[in-house]
């Protein structure tokens, strides 16, 4: 695969809830191995873009294509198994389960053994369970969470919960990660660590990342490209240094100078 | 993961062993306890009963139990049987078949009763009968009407007459005495007694030239029966056969009259309760039902039963009280004449009971251990049950 191949394309998306237009003619592409950030004030429709991509909402008009495949009318799990996984703005971990279990559930589609094998706990079953557990531990290791593997997810500190969500998304084996405000609630130091991690993950797993974030330092620091949404419309897109100076963007964030 | 399995295995094994162990030990302990009890209690004869004291059919079980208690008290006042006092141990079954099975097992294996009375309902009697049979303890069902109950084995007896007898009673009466040909049936789908009566009524009635114009069903506990009654009204029957319990009958009659159905209704011994008239009021006037006995018969035994029951419990006895009363008489008679208190001996004594006079008739058991006795047809007149005729088997 060569650099620059389109992995995800949004084709003139329009979405309305009742009378409220949330997205209007959103049209952009993401190339393989890019880190793209989507920014914009609250209510700009960023999370809606995620929800459409993952099949939670169906757009009123337009379509989303992933590696050339239409995503319309596919359910969330199918889309995940195609290679898109996400994190949630309001952390949705499996709270009562252990950290390791959280990750192992995400590697769901990598298992091959059948129910009978699991009941008899055959060699194949044991080998596979071991292999998957090791793989999950490895990813946890990258995020510095391996010592927490047996703890209940709800007992992790907030920042680590956010990280665990990313681990979980990675464990699905996704080619494209959608991260919804990964740095929310983190302090400066943690955010800094997260930036390194995201870049490291991108390198190591060769994934493409689309993220929503309010922390400008993070966005400017790691994004190859930035897309700015405002009232459901793309008002600007381009390299970080370009966005920083865009008049419309500044207006959208600071309000029109009177 | 492996470790958990081992831990689980160990705890499961320990748990099973522990609980089984606990039970066997407990069992030894209770057995000891019961033998300890048995010595001073040799002057008592323990008779078990399984009757519903709670649950949806509690009212029937209580009636039977009240009557049995009454007979036993009286017998004990007269010195019991050969100087031994009778003691009734009633275990409640919450009106459930599975609880009845537990209760009778407990009576037989823990309490060591010599015989079991009950249940008022066929379904619960059927659940109990195999246990009585396999333990060789005679069981006398007070109210079961399903023929299958006594077919379970030769230790199973009953006091009530069976559906194939009672169903045709009213059929005969309608055809021969009232000379009516077009009848509607309105039965309780949830109730085995009602379904049984309806079935045998229908078979007999159609075989003898009658016509069933419509068959409708309700379920016990419903409050509104007008839909079915309106459907019945449209078929213009000359009589409506309504086998069921008085708990619903009163309401049904009321609603039938509200809809302008003027023909007579009729049913079986489930109608026998003063509550029927209380709930149904004038709507029940002119209706007929088959029963074991007539409460205002001149028979002094019936008079005494009704008077005593009223004095003790403050209400007129219903059919199940009468059956409970007779069941108690039967069991006393059998124990008195039995060679010993062993199950087979009491069974043999029960088998040969002949012409025992009870309030529900003169009782002799046939080869199926069902009583041979006649039924009466009663008519509700001025809020009272008036005797109309007797129909013999």
């Amino acid at each position, binding site marked *: 695969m060569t650099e620059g191949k389109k992995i995800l394309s949004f084709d003139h998306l329009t979405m309305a809830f009742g009378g409220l237009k949330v997205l209007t003619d959103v049209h952009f592409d993401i190339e393989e191995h890019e880190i793209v950030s989507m920014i914009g004030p609250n209510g700009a429709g960023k999370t809606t873009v995620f929800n459409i991509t993952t099949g939670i909402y169906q757009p009123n008009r337009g379509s989303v294509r992933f590696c050339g495949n239409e995503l319309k009318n596919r359910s969330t799990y199918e889309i995940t198994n195609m290679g898109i996984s996400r994190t949630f703005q309001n952390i949705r971990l499996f709270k009562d389960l252990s950290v390791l279990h959280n990750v192992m559930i995400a590697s769901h589609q990598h298992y091959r053994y059948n*129910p009978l094998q699991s009941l008899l706990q055959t060699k194949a079953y044991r080998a596979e369970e071991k292999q998957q557990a090791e793989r999950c531990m490895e990813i946890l290791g990258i995020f510095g969470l391996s010592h927490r593997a047996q703890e209940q997810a709800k007992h992790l500190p907030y920042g680590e919960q956010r990280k665990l969500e990313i681990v979980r998304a990675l464990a699905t084996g996704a080619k494209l990660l959608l991260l919804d405000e990964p740095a929310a609630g983190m302090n400066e130091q943690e955010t800094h660590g997260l930036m390194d991690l995201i870049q490291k993950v991108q390198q190591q797993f060769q994934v493409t990342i689309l993220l929503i974030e309010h922390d400008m330092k993070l966005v400017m620091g790691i994004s190859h490209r930035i897309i700015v949404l405002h009232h459901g419309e793309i008002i600007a897109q381009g390299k970080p240094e370009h966005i920083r100076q865009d008049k419309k963007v500044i207006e959208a964030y600071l309000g029109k100078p009177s | 993961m492996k470790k958990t399995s081992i831990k689980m295995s160990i705890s499961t*094994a320990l748990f099973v062993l522990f609980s089984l162990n606990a039970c066997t030990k407990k069992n030894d302990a209770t057995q000891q306890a019961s033998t300890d009890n048995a010595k001073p209690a040799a002057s008592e004869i323990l008779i078990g009963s399984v009757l519903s004291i709670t649950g949806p059919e509690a009212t029937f079980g209580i009636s039977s139990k009240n009557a049995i208690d009454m007979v036993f008290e009286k017998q004990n006042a007269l010195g019991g049987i050969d100087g031994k006092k009778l003691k009734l141990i009633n275990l*409640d079954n919450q009106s459930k078949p599975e609880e009845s099975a537990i209760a009778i097992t407990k009576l037989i294996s823990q309490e060591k009763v010599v015989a079991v009375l009950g249940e008022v309902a066929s379904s619960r009697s059927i659940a109990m009968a*195999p246990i009585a049979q396999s333990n060789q303890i005679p069981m006398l069902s007070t109210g079961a009407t399903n023929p299958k109950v006594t077919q379970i084995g030769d230790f199973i007896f009953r006091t009530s007459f069976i559906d194939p007898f009672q169903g045709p009673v009213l059929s005969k009466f309608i055809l021969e005495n009232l000379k009516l040909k077009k009848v509607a049936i309105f039965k309780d789908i949830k109730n085995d007694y009602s379904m049984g009566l309806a079935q045998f009524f229908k078979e007999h009635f159609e075989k003898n030239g009658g016509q069933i114009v419509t068959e409708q069903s309700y379920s016990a506990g419903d409050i509104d029966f007008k839909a079915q009654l309106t459907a019945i009204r449209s078929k213009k029957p000359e009589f409506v056969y309504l086998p069921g319990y008085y708990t619903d009958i009163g309401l049904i009659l009321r609603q039938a009259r509200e809809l302008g159905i003027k023909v007579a209704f009729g049913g079986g011994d489930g109608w026998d309760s003063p509550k029927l008239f209380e709930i149904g009021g004038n709507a029940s006037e002119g209706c007929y039902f088959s029963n074991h006995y007539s409460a205002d018969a001149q028979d002094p035994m019936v008079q005494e039963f009704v008077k005593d029951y009223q004095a003790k419990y403050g209400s007129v006895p219903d059919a199940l009280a009468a059956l409970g009363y007779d069941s108690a008489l039967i069991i006393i008679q059998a124990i008195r004449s039995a060679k010993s208190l062993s199950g087979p001996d009491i069974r043999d004594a029960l088998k040969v009971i002949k012409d025992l006079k009870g309030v529900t008739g003169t009782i002799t058991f046939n080869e199926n251990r069902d009583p041979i006795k006649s039924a009466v047809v009663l008519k509700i007149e001025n809020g009272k049950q008036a005797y109309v005729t007797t129909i013999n088997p």
Partner: protein
Amino acid sequence: MIALAAATIATYLLTPYISSFYLQMLTLAGINVVLANGLNLISGITGQLSLGHAGFMAIGAYASAYFSLQYSDPNYFLLSLLLGGLFAGAFGLLLGLPTLRLKGDYLAIVTLGFSEMIRVLFLNMGSLGGARGLPQIPHHTNLTWVVFAAAATLFFIHRWMNSYFGRAFLAIREDEMAAQSCGVNTTKYKVMSFSLGAFFAGVAGALFAHQLTYISPSIFTFTKSFEILTMVVLGGLGSLSGATFSAILLTFLPEVLRPLQQITHIDLRMIIYSLLLIILMLTRPTGIMGKREIWELIPWPKRKA
């Protein structure tokens, strides 16, 4: 596996030493263990509230009883049990497919309605006895069978929980949306959980039918479903050992309270039972065990790595 065999053999050996009353109580307790764990799979582990377990039990009981009435040979008993389970499982599938997109309370109501409909259906089936029920079912169930079934159920569920299917069930309970995002086909696994739970209920129903030797629609009312649910909740939703423990406890409780009835001459048993239920929910809403297992509470000696 070893525990399974050991428990069965131990029971078989001990059976002659137990009085018939305790034998019966233990048998019922064992049946309840199967029922409670089957429901635990649906409600505790997969998080789908079901109030219709008695309906599945009824299907299993009727299917196997009907079979045993045709082929009463005790050698066919295992087949009869499996048949009961499979029938119930099939109905679980049938009910699960259209209804599982409903959530929470709505699902609870639909399952409740479903089991009531099953009951009305049996009431109307004359060939199965209607309201008069099916009597004279061969008495094949004994404690050994029941312990075997209970142990097999526990074994099955425990192993299942250590597989990716089992973890998918847990994921659905914890957060359905997140489970989907992890690639779990939630509908498929919910239906699977429903059918499996129904299967166990069917087996339990079959055991029950061959224990009581009589079944009628009035046995399988929603009160029965509530009883089973109570066992699961009391034990702690999602806890295998909790459900097992409380199934046994609640089977014996009414009998333990029986002397009280003898003393007071009024029946306080069910009042105490319901009061206990309320008080337990108020003081320990997660049930006796919570989501934990009994072996997690025992201080095992730590092995050195």
